[in-house]
């Protein structure tokens, strides 16, 4: 259930475009006709109402407007000013009522201006309907997002890349194939080359033969000349004469040197014989002699030292014997052996020890006895008694100390208590009191008790004094602590002395026991002492000191005696050895007849003399050797000179003359002759050498020329041929080898190219790039397939669903549109190539589907009004808002205007408030006519007067400004016109062959009868399609003054001609393609804005004809659009179908096609007449 919003009043104080405030009141709840000239504020009223109903949220406008309206029985006041928009409901501030969303406000405003200016055809409405048709789904946007398309994506770059790579690959492969073909001839080429090479080789061989044979001739000539010369000349160098002279000089010097060397050798031999007539002592012998002399010298020294030692030992023995003499005789000494001497020594040591021990014991015993005698009377008390005395005195001192301390303490208390007792007794005496008596008694008691506690120590002291005296202690002066302490010190010292005495007594006893033991040891030795004294004649009292001394003297003598004996033996041995050495020396010198003196010094002098002689001998010997070596060297030199001399003479082929041992005159003459002969031979040498060289060179040339062909049988075969034959062969080979260089170069070049090709990667790389571009193109192909398949699927889905869910608004719009156009047009919803939805109109007569921009302005406005009215009616919410029509009838004829008004009044009949704004009086009249007699309230407002303050609405029709109706357009009457002139009067539209739909053909072209044509046009029919629809739907013409038979005939003829017109369009399209406009230019790839504008203008000037456009562009019609861009555009236009590569039909071909189409039903005259009309219409 919806409620209407009814505007009652509007006041505009300030609004852009309004200079003076004004108010409009008492709006009708039905229809309000607002009349006003342009700029009178009609649009401002609509704008003000929109601002009040849908105030802007974020921007504040400098407006001051107010309105009052009724809504569901409530009176609402709304005011908008700089502070915003405020509302009052029944004079109470309230929030604005809930209204349709602001986005829908344009649905309530139907402006002729906006409708005419709408290029999109109200795509928003269409899209909304399309979405509603598919259940709220946006198939178009989905298809756009998924890139579905009826045309495959143009991937020219991929194709161009593929073409380029294909071209490169083909070139590379062709190049490889060409090289391969060339290589097929390589073998033949190489055979030709080898043949030419063989000929070339023949030439080389022949030329070598020429050279060899020439050289061989030269060789033979030179060899013949050489034969007359001595063969040895060839070996001469030219220096032989000088060499011979040099040899002779050397020989002469050699002879002289040889004589001198012989003399020196003989002199040295004489000297050697004189030095050692018999034999020269050898070096070993001389060394042996010197060693023997040295040994003799050592023996002499050793004998001397031993002699001195014997003498010293004898003196020492004599001295020991002298010291023993008197006690021992020499006889006794001589009988004393080592064992006896050891016995004596042992006894003397034992006796000395025993006697010493006895002496030491006696001395200790004596000393202890003296000490004991000195301390025997020190005290009479024993040590034990003294210890008891000390204990008594110590105990006394301890008891005394305890007694003194206790007595001191008790004394204090005693005197204190005694004082208490005395005071107590005084008090008792002065004033009897029991407490005083008790205290005195207690004090006395304590005094008594303390006296009894001191008594034991005193008793102990007394007992200790008695004990001291009992033990025999020395009497003390007083028994006080100092005296007792002094007594204790004294007893202590006495006790120490007693203890020392006891220790001395023990030691003396030990000493006495030692004396006894020493005496016991000495007793058995005494007998032996006596016997010894008697034996050696010593003094009978020889004591322990004498006996050892005597024994020591004996030992000394014995040692000296043994030393004398040993030294004497060694001396004798040395003397014997020297004698033997002397004899050895005598024996060694005897062969040289040299006497050996006894004295060692003299022997050494003899040896020195021998050494001097040996030196002289060696010098002479060395001289002899030098002379001998010189002689040998001279002999060798002589041999060399002799050999060189012989060689020289033999090489010069001269009879050999032996060199003389001594140079005498005869010899000199002979040598001079020889030299002369030699000089003559050398003179012939140069001739010989020249011939030899010539011979050698010729031989070498011959050999070098023939060397490469030693194993060549052909060479040897040719070598023996005659010169004429060789020249012929050479000429033939030269002819064959002429192309050798070229063939070699060609073969090498080809081989090089083949080798290069074997290392190249041209085809491989081209294949790889071509594969990559093929893959890219395959992806593009897949993308195309996906786009097309997706698009086909989308169309399928669209077809399957679109009519199922068409919303009621669409059906209502289609109904309104059909009603407004009297069934002439049907509303459809179509999707364009961009996936955008738009309204189309289908001509019910021709079934031709037209886009909005293909409709006339009136039909277009009617379509859009119908759509908006349907939206307003069907899709709004609970509040029905007023509808504002702004000159919506401006483009409609009366009939259609009436239909529009009827549709609007139908809305007003539902309680919707309606506003119609216009500046046209005829429209006002139309409205008045339509409203008259209807049960719809309505009012007129003259806005100009309102703003001038004259009138504010008129309550009834008839009071408004009446304007005459607009003049109706009239068809020219046919009576005074021929067919041609009638067409001119009608301003028949031109037929654009190939572009204009056949159904849009004006009937004038195909209806020959002017009267029938007038009748047809009078029905409102403007095209062949309308006429056909009219006839098909009605089945006949309306009643008219033209007979039915006549009409049928005319129409039948017109149908025939229309077939010709269809052929005309079909044939004319061949080779032309779709017309080019701005959109198609973008599709073809012209995207740069500047170029697009310019090219689009050229396309328009060319009537969209692609070939003309391209021709203009190639002529430079657009600056900056060069040939490359033209080529790209050509491809693009061809791709999108604007440029048909087929050859366009000529006019004659088209005419023939038209004739062929209608030949069965009409003659050529009708077609020609039709073509003439078309041409005439084009002017």
């Amino acid at each position, binding site marked *: 259930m919806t409620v209407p919003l009814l505007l009652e009043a509007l006041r505009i104080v300030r609004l852009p475009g309004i200079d003076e405030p004004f108010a409009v009141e008492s709006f009708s709840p039905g229809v309000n006709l607002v009349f006003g000239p342009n700029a009178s504020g009609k649009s401002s009223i609509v704008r003000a109402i929109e601002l009040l109903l849908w105030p802007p949220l974020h921007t504040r406008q400098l407006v001051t407007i107010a309105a009052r309206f009724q809504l569901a029985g409530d009176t609402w006041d709304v005011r908008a000013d700089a502070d915003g928009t405020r509302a009052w409901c029944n004079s109470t501030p309230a929030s604005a009522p809930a209204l349709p969303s602001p986005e829908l406000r344009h649905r309530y405003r139907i402006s002729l201006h906006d409708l005419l200016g709408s290029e999109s055809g109200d795509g928003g409405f269409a899209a909304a309907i399309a979405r509603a048709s*598919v*259940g*709220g*789904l946006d198939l178009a*946007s*989905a*298809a756009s997002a*998924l890139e579905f398309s009826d045309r*495959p994506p*143009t*991937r*020219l770059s991929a*194709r161009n890349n*593929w073409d380029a790579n*294909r071209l490169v690959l083909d070139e590379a*492969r062709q190049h*490889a*194939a060409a*090289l*391969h073909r060339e*290589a097929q001839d390589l073998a033949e080429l190489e055979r030709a080359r080898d043949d030419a090479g063989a000929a070339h080789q023949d030439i080389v061989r022949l030329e070598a033969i020429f050279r060899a044979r020439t050289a061989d001739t030269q060789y033979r000539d030179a060899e013949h000349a050489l034969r007359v010369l001595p063969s040895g000349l060839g070996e001469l160098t030219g220096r032989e004469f000088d060499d011979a002279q040099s040899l002779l000089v050397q020989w002469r010097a050699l002879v002289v040197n040889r004589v001198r060397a012989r003399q020196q050798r003989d002199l040295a031999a004489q000297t050697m014989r004189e030095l050692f007539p018999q034999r020269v002592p050898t070096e070993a012998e001389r060394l042996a002699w010197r060693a023997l002399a040295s040994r003799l010298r050592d023996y002499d020294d050793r004998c001397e030292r031993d002699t001195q030692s014997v003498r010293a030992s004898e003196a020492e023995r004599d001295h020991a014997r002298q010291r023993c003499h008197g006690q021992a005789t020499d006889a006794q000494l001589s009988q004393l052996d080592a064992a006896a001497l050891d016995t004596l020594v042992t006894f003397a040591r034992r006796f000395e020890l025993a006697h010493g021990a006895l002496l030491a014991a006696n001395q200790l015993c004596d000393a202890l006895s003296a000490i004991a005698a000195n301390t025997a009377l020190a005290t009479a008390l024993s040590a034990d008694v003294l210890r008891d005395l000390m204990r008594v005195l110590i105990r006394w001192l301890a008891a005394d100390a305890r007694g003194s301390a206790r007595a001191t303490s008790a004394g204090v208390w005693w005197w204190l208590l005694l004082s208490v007792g005395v005071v107590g007794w005084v008090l008792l005496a002065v004033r009897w009191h029991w407490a005083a008596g008790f205290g005195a008694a207690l004090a006395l008691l304590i005094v008594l008790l303390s006296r009894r506690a001191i008594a034991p120590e005193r008793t102990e002291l007394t007992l200790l004094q008695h004990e001291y005296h009992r033990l025999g202690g020395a009497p003390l002066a007083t028994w006080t602590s100092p005296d007792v302490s002094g007594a204790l010190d004294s007893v202590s010292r006495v006790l120490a002395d007693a203890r020392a005495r006891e220790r001395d007594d023990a030691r003396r006893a030990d000493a006495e026991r030692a004396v006894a033991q020493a005496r016991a040891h000495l007793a058995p030795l005494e007998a032996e002492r006596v016997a010894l004294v008697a034996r050696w004649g010593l003094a009978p009292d020889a004591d322990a000191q004498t006996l050892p001394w005597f024994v020591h003297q004996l030992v000394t003598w014995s040692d000296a005696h043994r030393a004398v004996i040993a030294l004497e033996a060694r001396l004798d041995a040395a003397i014997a050895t020297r004698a033997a050495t002397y004899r050895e020396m005598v024996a060694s010198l005897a062969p040289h007849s040299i006497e050996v003196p006894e004295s060692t010094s003299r022997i050494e002098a003899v040896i020195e003399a021998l050494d001097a002689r040996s030196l002289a001998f060696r010098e002479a010997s060395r001289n002899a050797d030098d002379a001998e070596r010189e002689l040998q060297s001279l002999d060798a030199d002589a041999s060399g000179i002799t050999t060189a001399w012989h060689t020289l003479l033999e090489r010069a082929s001269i009879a050999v003359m032996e060199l003389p041992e001594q140079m005498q005159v005869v010899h000199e003459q002979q040598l001079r002759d020889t030299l002369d002969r030699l000089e003559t031979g050398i003179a012939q040498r140069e001739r010989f050498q020249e011939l030899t060289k010539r011979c050698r060179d010729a031989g070498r040339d011959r050999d070098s020329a023939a060397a490469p062909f030693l194993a060549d049988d052909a060479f040897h075969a040719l070598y023996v041929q005659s010169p004429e034959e060789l020249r012929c062969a050479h000429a033939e080979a030269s002819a064959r080898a002429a192309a050798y260089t070229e063939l070699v170069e060609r073969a090498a070049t080809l081989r090089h190219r*083949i*080798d290069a*090709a*074997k290392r190249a*990667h*041209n*085809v*491989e*790389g081209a*294949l*790889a790039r071509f*594969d*990559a571009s*093929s*893959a890219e*193109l*395959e992806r*593009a*192909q*897949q993308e*195309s*397939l*996906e786009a*097309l*398949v*997706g698009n*086909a*699927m*989308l*169309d*399928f*889905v*669209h*077809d*399957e*669903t679109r009519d199922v869910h068409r919303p009621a608004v669409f059906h209502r719009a289609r109904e309104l549109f059909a009603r407004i156009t009297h069934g002439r047009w049907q509303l459809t919803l179509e999707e364009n190539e961009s996936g955008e939805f738009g309204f189309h109109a289908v001509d019910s007569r021709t079934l031709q589907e037209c886009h909005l921009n293909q409709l006339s302005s009136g039909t277009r406005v009617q379509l859009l009004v119908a759509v908006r009215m349907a939206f307003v009616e069907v899709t709004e919410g609970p509040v029905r808002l007023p509808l504002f029509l702004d000159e919506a009838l401006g483009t409609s004829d009366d009939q259609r205007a009436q239909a529009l008004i009827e549709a609007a009044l139908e809305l007003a009949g539902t309680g919707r408030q309606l506003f119609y704004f216009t500046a046209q009086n005829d429209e006002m009249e139309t409205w008045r006519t339509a409203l008259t007699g209807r049960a719809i309230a309505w009012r007129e407002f003259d806005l100009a007067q309102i703003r001038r303050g004259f009138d504010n609405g008129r309550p009834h029709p008839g009071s408004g400004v009446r304007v005459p109706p607009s003049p109706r357009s009239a068809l020219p009457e046919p009576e005074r016109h021929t067919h041609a002139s009638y067409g001119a009067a009608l301003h028949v539209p031109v037929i654009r062959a190939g572009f204009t739909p056949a159904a849009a053909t004006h009937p004038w072209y195909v209806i020959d009868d002017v009267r029938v044509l007038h009748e047809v046009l009078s029905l409102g029919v403007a095209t062949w399609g309308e006429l056909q629809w009219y006839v098909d739907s009605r089945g006949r013409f309306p009643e008219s003054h033209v007979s039915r038979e006549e009409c049928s005939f005319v129409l039948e003829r017109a149908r025939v001609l229309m077939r010709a017109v269809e052929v005309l369009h079909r044939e004319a399209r061949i080779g032309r393609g779709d017309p080019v406009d701005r959109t198609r230019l973008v599709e073809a790839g012209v995207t740069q804005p500047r170029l697009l504008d310019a090219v689009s203008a050229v396309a328009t000037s060319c009537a969209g004809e692609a070939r003309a456009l391209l021709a203009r562009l190639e002529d430079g019609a657009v600056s900056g659009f060069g040939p490359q861009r033209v080529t790209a555009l050509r*491809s693009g236009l*061809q*791709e999108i179908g604007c440029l048909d590569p087929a050859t366009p039909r000529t006019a004659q071909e088209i005419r023939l096609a038209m004739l062929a189409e209608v030949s069965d039903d009409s003659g050529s005259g009708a077609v020609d007449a039709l073509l003439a009309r078309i041409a005439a219409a084009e002017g």
Partner: protein
Amino acid sequence: MLYLALESQPTSLMRLLCTGDLHIGRRSSRVPADLPDASAADAWARIVTHAIHQRADAVLLSGDVVDQDNRYFEALGPLERGLFRLREAGIPVVAVAGNHDFDVLPALARSLPDGLLHLLGVGGMWERHTIENARGERVHVDGWSFPARVVRHDPLTQYVAPAIDGAPVLGLVHGDLNVPQSLYAPLSLASLRRASVNGWVLGHVHSGGLMHQTGDAPVLYPGSPQPLDPGEPGAHGVWMLTVTADGTVAARLDGIATVRYEPVFVDLSTCATETEARECTTFALRARLLDILTRSPELRHVALRVCLSGRTPLHGQLQPLVSLVREISDLGLAFSSGANATLSVTHVELATTAERDLTQLSASNDPIGVLARLLLTLQHGDAIDPALAQRLRPIPARVREARVFAGAVHTESLSDDAVRRTLSAQADRLLETLLRQRDQSP
């Protein structure tokens, strides 16, 4: 090295390096143009080096050594150089011609010095060559070469085994196995089994492998040692064939390819957000690459074909991920594996499915319902609506006749199946878009 089959070798007899379908003259496609060592000629040079290092007793080439499109000197030069190197190493080369080099290989063999290349079966006649190594051990190779570019009959029908002398026999032939209507020497496995040979080395299939059943002679397609396009995924290399005295044949694949085309399937069914999908994809790619590069360190480039799959609510929102994956060129592998290989993505296929009930959606009459019914029809393999079929019918012709594709049409992409696949994909995309619209509408 990838060991696909290596049997016990009781008595090792001969080690034969087998390869074929080199197509020298081409290079791996869909890889960077400046990628080094990416040509078949480079692969041949590596094969020669490998044969020398492995001390192979012979090299067997199973045809299509030279590519038809580049069969002249550019291809022959590297081939000759390799043959000379092998001769210097004392390794004989035995080959048969394939459909690509049926003419050029015999010509080359004639032009080369004797013994450099033993081309068997020239003119379509079976021929035997005996390989004998330094130890005096022998293996017979029976070979047959293409006499023309097209051979419609099975060459095995003309094969007559020579007298048996105890030495193992290998068959070497170029042909199409188990494709009876093939224009390239159709071979049947049964005829191969019937022949009394110890093993077959075939050519013509670029992604080869070893077919071996217990008791049967193994049939080996060595495949291209260097993959040439994304249709040849997986490991490529040469096969080292070990033939023992008792006729046992063992084969081992040695990877020498520098390029590897690898399909990677990423399951996004567990991803709830786009970030998770991105991380999941990156992780899967990294893991796969690390695995590949660890197994094949000789690779210099890996070209991935990524397929995003799985039933996920993100279906329809993965286009940014597709764009991201398509531009991936570095996953930081240099830090992880130390590999020296580059990376590219040749194709990203979005094969995810949405979490939606097509049956439920098909109940409505709106476009969503129509699309859902269409997808169900396509999924079931049923015939599509005649009206839609009518609309689709001229599309291949339109594409084919479009100027941009004239003369360069990839007919396989325009087959009925291709159109049907495209229709399914586009219907899915459109349905997803419309569902999103519906979800976003107030």
